[in-house]
């Protein structure tokens, strides 16, 4: 598990989006979105900004470093 926690799943579900829809909107596959949500993969800075921008949030609101 990667040390970067995130609230991508909660934000996605709050908007009624599927993992495929989110992936298509930001140029990632459904599997990658699932891996990010389960903390099995840390997205690149570019992908993190794309997700945050889509949800209208700051990157630091969406992603948090957890020791």
């Amino acid at each position, binding site marked *: 598990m990667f040390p970067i926690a995130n609230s991508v799943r909660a934000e996605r579900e709050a908007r009624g989006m599927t993992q495929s829809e989110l*992936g298509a909107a930001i*140029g*990632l*596959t*459904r*599997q*990658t979105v699932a*891996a990010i949500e389960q903390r*099995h*993969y840390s*997205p*690149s800075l*570019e*992908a993190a900004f794309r997700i945050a921008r889509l949800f209208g949030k700051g990157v630091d609101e969406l992603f948090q470093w957890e020791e």
Partner: protein
Amino acid sequence: MSFRYKSALLSLVSMAAIYAWYFIFLLIHFRTGHPFNPVSHLIFTILLLAFVQIVGHLIIAGTSSDKYAAPDERERAFDRRATMVGYYVLIVGALVAIATLHIGFDGPKIGDAVLFAIVLAECTRQAVFLIAHHKAA
């Protein structure tokens, strides 16, 4: 399972199985000394692999909704890692193939050793790609 995962699995299994058959056949020939045509054996192996790959990819493309999706950053990272490991296997394999010259291998046998190194490197590349997928699933 994504299209690229299925594709890598198909490539790994088909290459391993078909070239295992090729090299076992070759080994039996060297041991027993039965006459056979190595060129036609190699051509048949290549054509068989091409046929299995083409038909197999047509089948998995028909069952995958993401067949036209471009690889994203995660899959490109898996690919880079797999290519890096495969490259080292290829370099070591090539050096070993060259070294066979010093234990009396002739031209065709050295060629087979190089072919074995290429097959091993490609199988390693596909296997590392699949393992990376599993670990990060």
